[in-house]
């Protein structure tokens, strides 16, 4: 167990990096770690480097796995299933497919036009941005393994329940008709070689890096500011553990925001450090990643208002409940 703990601390939490950055801050910059500015600079440099390293390694790995499951294949797998099993598989497939909500619209149309039940597609759409292998490892790195695993489980439960409710609600009439009549393309795909997969994974890393680095810098910047400059009493009076409405506020603030998990985790980390409830911080993180104004605007092009509202309603309620649960049982995790 000691070896596992050492690996966990060095590889995942990167204590060696924290120590190196500390040397840099204290000996090169001449700032004391006891001062707010020294601690902020340390938080910023350490978190940025850590997230970028994890991002590169994780996206590479996930993309490699993903290369075995192009959307066409996912659609074929899901096509042969029904009921709960289909929703669960949809949610699980969502964990290994695209990081970006921008690719979800073509997927939505492709899945729906081929006759996949709407609920299964939504299970996939909910879990896709919310839960992926990369976010699990990042959560384990910044918090710990039990939080990471609990996060995945509740994320999957939300996706399955959300999809099931949408199935039962008989919503197909609220899908724009061109979606249902889009052609289903079935062109044979060549088997990828190892080099193809390597190239695909490397491209994904470059692509996602280009897209998210700004958000990571902003997120870590806000995190560093909260960490050392915002008074704890101020944070806890706004978002303290005892108020149920702080979870609601955190969830609602996150809905229109567009960022991804790599940018929001450092903010959640700093908030928890300031005494904000774990559930409140996670609720904020989940609603930022699961829903955003740009993705809702895109989704509006393919579904009508009632379905869109049901989708947003389910996700918001789900995240709110998850936040409350995490706050209530936080003592089990920290």
């Amino acid at each position, binding site marked *: 167990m000691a070896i596992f703990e050492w690996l966990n601390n060095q590889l995942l939490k990167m204590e060696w990096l924290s120590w190196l950055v500390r040397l840099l801050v204290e000996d090169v910059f001449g700032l004391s770690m006891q001062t707010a500015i020294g601690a902020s600079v340390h938080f910023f440099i350490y978190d940025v480097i850590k997230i970028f390293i994890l991002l590169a390694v994780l996206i590479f790995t996930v993309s490699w796995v993903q290369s075995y499951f*192009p*959307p*066409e294949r996912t*659609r074929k797998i899901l096509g042969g299933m029904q009921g709960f099993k289909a929703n669960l598989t949809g949610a699980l497939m969502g964990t290994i497919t695209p990081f970006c909500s*921008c*690719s979800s*619209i*073509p*997927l939505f*149309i*492709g*899945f729906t*036009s081929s006759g996949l039940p709407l609920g299964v597609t939504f299970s996939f759409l909910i879990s896709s941005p919310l839960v992926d292998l990369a976010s699990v490892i990042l959560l384990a790195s910044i918090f710990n393994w039990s939080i990471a695993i609990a996060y995945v489980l509740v994320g999957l439960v939300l996706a399955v329940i959300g999809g099931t409710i949408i199935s039962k609600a008989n919503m197909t009439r609220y899908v724009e008709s*061109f*979606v249902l009549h*889009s*052609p*289903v*393309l079935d*062109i044979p*795909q060549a088997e990828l070689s190892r080099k193809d997969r390597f190239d695909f994974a490397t*491209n994904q890393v470059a*692509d996602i890096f*280009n897209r998210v680095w700004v958000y990571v810098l902003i997120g870590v910047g806000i995190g560093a500011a909260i960490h050392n400059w915002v008074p704890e009493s101020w944070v806890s009076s706004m978002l303290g553990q005892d108020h149920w409405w702080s979870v609601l506020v955190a969830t609602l603030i996150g809905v229109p925001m567009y960022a991804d998990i790599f940018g929001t985790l450092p903010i959640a980390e700093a908030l928890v450090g300031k005494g904000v409830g774990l559930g409140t911080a996670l609720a904020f993180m989940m609603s930022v990643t699961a829903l955003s104004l740009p993705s809702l605007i*895109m989704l509006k*092009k*393919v579904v009508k208002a009632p379905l869109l509202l049901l989708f947003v309603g389910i996700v918001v309620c789900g995240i709110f409940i998850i936040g409350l649960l995490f706050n209530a049982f936080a003592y089990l995790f920290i």
Partner: protein
Amino acid sequence: MKIKILGSGCSKCKTLTENTQTALTHLGMVAEIIKVTDYAEIAAHGVMSTPALAIDDKVVSVGKVLLSSEIETLLQAR
């Protein structure tokens, strides 16, 4: 002949466009290259993973940046 490049304007689509141009020049063919960036229109072609390539409205490749040699094969095959 019309060639469509389907994709939301990512760097991969640019490479695919360049490769297509190279293939055309190499074969001494002339074609109109149209970039399709609207999601609804991309999906109307049945495409789920971009970038995709369509020759005369027939989708011949999805989710892959084809090399110019591969595009040449496709152009000759039609």
